[in-house]
């Protein structure tokens, strides 16, 4: 096998994954900001840019399939490429959730919030840093970084529980808040899903490094 050529290809694959990850992270931040600032222009931008994420997913997928077909990689090379294929699926789903959040912005843009949005942006900040950390773990081939990142999922889950309880309480006391409260619950749920996808990426990184599949998100 032309080792040098494959090395170059694997580095390019890594760069593309990082670019896709950075875009997904931007999408998440922008989606949550569009909500807290009730910025519908920004929300529409997030929804439009989801196509860019989809395009990147397809480009990386094609690149991986070409490498599999032409280089027929084995052992760690095989795991690196198959892990990339799994990661882009998780990234693409995260971006879908960002677009979902932006759609909530468009629904709520004319309403006053039933409570100040504090925990949701905090949860989103945690989840998007998990995205970045998961890709760092991929690039550094580090199980330690992956495991550290996965532990943040507990904080996300905790915040989700808090948000859930608070919103439920508000809706119980003020039934007219049920519509918005439900939308905000969805937003929290989307962010929680994003963190789960980041956890998946961490598990794939551990597989890539060790060759063992582990479920860490229990």
């Amino acid at each position, binding site marked *: *096998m032309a*080792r040098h050529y*494959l090395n170059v290809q694997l580095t390019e694959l890594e760069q593309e994954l990082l670019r896709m990850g950075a875009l997904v992270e931007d999408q998440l931040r922008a989606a949550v900001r569009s909500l807290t600032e009730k910025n519908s222009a920004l929300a529409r931008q997030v929804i439009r840019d989801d196509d860019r994420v989809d395009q990147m997913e397809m480009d990386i997928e094609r690149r991986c399939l070409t490498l599999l077909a032409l280089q*027929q*990689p*084995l*052992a*760690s*090379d*095989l*795991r690196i490429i198959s892990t990339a294929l799994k990661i882009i699926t998780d990234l693409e789903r995260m971006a879908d959730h960002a677009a979902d959040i932006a759609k909530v912005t468009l629904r709520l843009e004319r309403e006053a919030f039933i409570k100040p949005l504090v925990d949701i942006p905090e949860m989103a900040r945690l989840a998007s840093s998990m995205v970045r950390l998961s890709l760092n773990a991929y690039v550094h081939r580090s199980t330690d970084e992956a495991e550290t990142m996965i532990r943040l999922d507990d904080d996300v889950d905790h915040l989700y529980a808090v948000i859930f309880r608070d919103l439920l309480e508000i809706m119980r006391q003020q039934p007219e808040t049920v519509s918005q409260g439900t939308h905000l619950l969805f937003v929290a749920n989307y962010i929680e899903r994003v963190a789960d996808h980041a956890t998946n990426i961490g598990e794939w990184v551990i597989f890539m490094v*060790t*060759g*063992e599949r582990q479920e860490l998100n229990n």
Partner: protein
Amino acid sequence: MAPTIRTEHLSVSYHRTPVLHQISLEAAGGEVLALIGPSGCGKSTFLRALNRLVEETPGARVEGRVYLGNMNIYAPSVDVTQLRRRVGMVFQAPNPFPFSIFDNVAYGPRLHGVTDAGELRRIVERSLQEAALWDEVRGKLRRPALTLSGGQQQRLCIARALAVDPEVLLLDEPTAALDPLSTEKIEELIANLRGRYTIVMVTHNLRQAARISDRTAFFAEGRLVEVGWTRQMFTAPQDPRTEQYLTGRYQP
């Protein structure tokens, strides 16, 4: 049921230069075991030790034991001709004898005393069928074997090995000299022979080992580095040297 073939602390040297060190390795009955490793790692010597062909090399010295089932094949009482009937071998380049197709396949059975013409015909047909060559050569059995294509010649050599009713087949890079289509036929044939024969195959083609073997043994510098399930070894090898070899980074 095909027997296991197993080595215990098998060492081989040529003119006092060691080429294999203390190899303990088993091919289970009916499995396909692939031997891979860089050139000069000793895998072909290992294969040749399994039917005592290695002894034909001047200056060769074999230590340790090789068991076919329960029989130590290096025991003084063992008849080497009988042993090689039970442990057949196919080489890298197809090497049919300069006889007819029929006589190539009948050669072994005749050597082992089969004289009845009807019996010979049945053996030849059965062996050619098992080697997936029958449909291409029926009605042409009197033609010289050397008129066959390279891929057909190699399947003829496999038929010749099968004609004496072996239990183990040793394949030394059986497709190294063949085009992709012929290679595919041989690989399919090996897959069909799995279970009925214990097959030990040396190959330089890693993807071939991945495609058709149950387990793979990686040799380097005369030592067995790692042996395991092929599906495990080709996705997540345990030894760093195996990893390096499979990803094209191995430096002796």
